């Protein structure tokens, strides 16, 4: 039975990790440029609803995903406006964005849909040939196409961040904005780009949740995944590969919690549900010594008039 559980956890965990991965990679770009976007949860919720609703209306998952990404991008742009141009406290403004996304998605869902309704979203697609590999094939190569995309984005993000001129600018702006500014990098523009990109990715994360994973929408569907995604950036030490391992770890913990319920192991249900959140706190607490590798200017609005 142990082997069964282990395979079950891996099989269950990989699809769960995609939404975390999208959101977390997006947040990583924002934080690398120096902006801490706590609104991820709200962006995911609203875009999950928009994606769901378009599929519900028109039956087109592609349209749903595109619209969700557009909504995410707009909310990212709003966050950029608030935190870069208005230089607002980023933690609090993120919470404002969270409440906004939660309130709007919950309200519009009740007005336009009413109750829980299933939709035909995107199902799994098996990769020919590879899916026939024993044991690993069905686990790794019979997934939702968005899951493949999420894992593909890990090396892509790595490449963009560490091997392209733009990635260099992003890192420079997040570490020493004054120096970057002196060298002619437009700090504000790079930050706008990164936070908007983060919004688009959170939108994709939301769309994956409602269209791919759950194939439905419910109030508070994201249940803290947006916040966990932010924590994963810390856990992954601002590196795409670290973020990926974190996303896998947490989704497997989530899957383990589900299989505990499925196998009827005696364990209070509520404590099982609380486990992933508890894990986030523990992981943040245990990795505190490694925290000094983050972007130095994280959370600090850049003001040209006060060069320090």
């Amino acid at each position, binding site marked *: 039975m142990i082997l069964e559980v282990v395979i079950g956890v891996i099989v269950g965990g990989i699809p769960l990790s995609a939404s975390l991965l999208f959101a977390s990679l997006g947040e990583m770009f924002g934080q690398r440029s120096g902006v801490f976007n706590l609104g991820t949860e709200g962006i995911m919720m609203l875009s999950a609803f928009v994606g769901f609703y378009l599929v519900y209306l028109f039956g087109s998952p592609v349209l749903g995903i595109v619209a969700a990404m557009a909504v995410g991008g707009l909310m990212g742009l709003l966050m950029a406006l608030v935190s870069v141009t208005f230089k*607002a406290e980023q933690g*609090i*403004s993120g*919470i404002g964005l969270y*409440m906004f996304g*939660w309130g709007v998605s919950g309200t519009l869902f009740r007005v336009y849909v009413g109750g829980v309704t299933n939709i035909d979203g995107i199902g799994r697609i098996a990769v020919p040939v590879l899916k026939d590999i024993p044991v690993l094939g069905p686990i790794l190569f019979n997934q939702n196409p968005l899951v493949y995309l999420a894992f593909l984005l890990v090396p892509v993000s790595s490449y963009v961040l560490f091997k392209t001129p733009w990635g260099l600018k992003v890192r420079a702006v997040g570490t020493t904005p004054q120096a970057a500014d002196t060298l002619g990098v437009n700090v504000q523009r790079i930050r706008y780009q990164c936070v908007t990109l983060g919004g688009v990715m959170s939108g994709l994360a939301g769309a994956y949740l409602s269209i791919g994973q759950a194939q439905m929408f419910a109030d508070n569907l994201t249940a803290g995944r947006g916040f966990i995604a932010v*924590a994963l950036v810390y856990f992954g030490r601002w590196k795409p590969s670290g973020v990926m391992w974190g996303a896998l770890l947490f989704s497997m913990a989530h899957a383990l919690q589900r299989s505990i319920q499925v196998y009827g192991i005696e364990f209070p249900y*509520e404590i099982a549900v*609380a486990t992933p959140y508890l894990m986030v706190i523990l992981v*943040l607490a245990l990795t505190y010594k490694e925290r000094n590798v983050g972007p130095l200017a994280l959370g600090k609005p850049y003001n040209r008039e006060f060069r320090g």
Partner: protein
Amino acid sequence: MEKSSADKYRELAVSTVIVLFSLMIALILGAFLFAVAGANPLRAYGVMLAQPLSGMFGLTEMMVRAAPLMLVGLGIAIAFRSGILNIGGEGQIMLGVVFGTAVGLALPNLPKPLLIAAVFLAAFVGGGLWGGIAGWMRAYLNVNEILSTVMLNYIAVQVYQYLLRGPMIDPNEVAYGTGVPQTALLSENARLIRYIQGFRLHSGLLIAIALAVVVFLFLWKTTVGYRMRAVGAEPKAATYAGMNVKHNLVLAMVLSGGFAGMAGAIEVMGVHHRAMESISAGYGFSGIVVALFGGLHPLGIVPSSMVFGLLIVGADMMQRAVDVPASIILAIQGLIIVAIVSSNLFLKNPKMRDKVFSLLGGRKIAERDPEGGRT
């Protein structure tokens, strides 16, 4: 640096105008939301803002909501002033409810004033512990307090539901097999006084106002309070001055969580007389808006909690009148937060402040505070 009273007056005038302006912008954006949700925004706002004021029920309910909002808001102001963001009000309220109800049920025959004080104290301890965890982790392990308080919210919900369904459930619910997740009713001695027959208005509001005065005196007239604000305003300078920053961060979060816990006690002793599911009604988050809208000042938070008590009661009435879910108020509060923190650009920049002041018809005052320092 001591400021002259003219400066103080100028700052107060400017920040009041800016905060009201932010509220207006948020309400205008909210009007679009109403339109998207299929309602006439003017009619919706009309019901929301005017109907609670036009009858005894609305007025008393507004004050019933204001009491917990005030306490949560005070706690959040203490934390924010000390340089730590407390987003965990929701979880701290629940822990306060658990601790307070447990004491209330355990000592049903204690004399009324003693029992009420004991429940408040227990709730303070419960909320304070929950907040203190996040404060301690921030101070000693450098864990971002926003993330930890948010996670503690999710954990608190589960702990709360576990306790209500299991160990703390009303024995009658088990005996009759109904199984509603709630505790037994508190004894008469653990209930706050209700003033008007047929309405829920209770003495919790007066207690909250008294505590607002206590917080004001604590933060501005005691050494400990001064240190906490100093640590919040300039942690480096405070360290050089020999203040223990870490110690103050923990203290701030314990107090902040404790106040949220007491808000839970007020709901239990004043409104429901037991612990039950969804007791908090989002006060943990609304408290953030209340605190910001009140300028993070106890004497601003008192009227501010009335404003948001009005909005929350009004949203319920609006839901019945124009058929838009009351959850829209959550979105509007989010917009208010975004608008207020964005306006900080104007509040912190002395040139901008002067400009706003002269627009108001006031004389420009020679620049005295080039850093635009926080008080």
